[in-house]
């Protein structure tokens, strides 16, 4: 019997869809093509099989997501994960927060930052550099965005280049997308 996970955690749960995923054996050539863009093409996740109901979107979404989160140069991987985590806190996507907080922990070899964020949410107190990144990404994740000129100026003052700031905008924004799929089309569970 599985139980739904409601609290933020860095132990990645299983994602259980609310709609019936595409059955791999019955997938159309277009659906198969869209699903192959993902890193793992032997074992297709329920998430990807669910999104395969709209293969035109999935085919573009996967390379876009990978380019934003894992593209070379610019903002560090850990800081992109911090932006993703901030968006996931605002949108309360427990699954996305778990995946990206655990990646942040693995990259930084430290768990204090995520512990503080999970304990205090948007009131988390972090060191200056991480605080500016977290706050900007969280404000950009509101509807409408609450990010202001001061927030960007703070990032620039702390030494982030324009490309790094753009990467932060993109990594927060792509979770405005991902959270709205993951958190609305299914839920995190423990088996």
């Amino acid at each position, binding site marked *: 019997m599985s139980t739904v996970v409601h609290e933020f955690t860095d132990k990645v749960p299983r994602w259980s869809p*609310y*709609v*019936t995923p595409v059955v791999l054996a019955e997938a159309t050539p277009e659906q198969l093509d869209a699903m192959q863009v993902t890193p793992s093409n032997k074992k297709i996740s329920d998430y990807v099989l*669910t*999104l395969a*109901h*709209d293969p*035109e*979107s999935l*085919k*573009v*979404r996967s*390379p*876009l997501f990978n*380019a*934003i989160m894992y*593209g070379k*140069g*610019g903002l560090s991987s850990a800081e992109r994960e911090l932006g993703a985590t901030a968006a996931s806190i*605002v*949108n*309360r*996507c427990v699954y996305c927060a778990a995946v990206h907080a655990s990646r942040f922990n693995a990259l930084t070899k430290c768990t204090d930052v995520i512990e503080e964020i999970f304990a205090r949410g948007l009131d988390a107190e972090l060191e200056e550099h991480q605080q500016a990144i977290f706050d900007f990404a969280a404000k*950009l*994740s509101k*509807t*409408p*965005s609450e*990010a*202001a*000129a001061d*927030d*960007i*100026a703070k990032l*620039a003052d702390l030494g982030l280049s*324009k*490309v790094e*700031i*753009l*990467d*932060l*905008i*993109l990594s*927060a*924004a*792509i979770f*405005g*997308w*991902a*959270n*709205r*799929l993951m*958190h*609305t*089309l299914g*839920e995190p569970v423990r088996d």
Partner: protein
Amino acid sequence: MKHRLVVIASQAAWERMRMSSPHLIETLSGAGSGLAGVLAERAEILGLSQAAHDAVLLPLAPGGISHVERAALAARMASANADAALAEHYRELLRQAGESPALLAFAEGAGPAADTDARLRAIIRHVDLVTLSPRDTTKADIAALAAAGLSEPDIVRLAELIAFVNYQARVIAGLRLLGAIA
């Protein structure tokens, strides 16, 4: 026959829209020459973002959510994100698709009318909820879409449309701020 001609004319318009605005995000964010170099470094991402726009607004296989409905819902979401320029872009798509007074009202943020059918009523409710407060979405909200007659593929198509427009609005909002200090 007359109806058929109208369909062909509007398909031609959609084809033109798919080919146009290759740099929608740059255009709408007003990113000037100060950001040209930065945007060039992320050209692949901007190109994929435009392809995603076409995939959710102008899909070749729209399923049960028509192009005209998609444009109206996108305009509504752009307005919820306080982005007048993005909302105008989607109203232009809506005009090209052959808007109806009802859809234009929804595009501009009006609530469902007395004669709005249950399907569209459920779609509008979901678009507003997931745009404004995705954290409050639950399993019951997906069940409500199914109960209003949406197929499972259409529920996923709607989710991708909502998710994309909310992504795009944030990229544009961020670029406007970045452009101001560039």
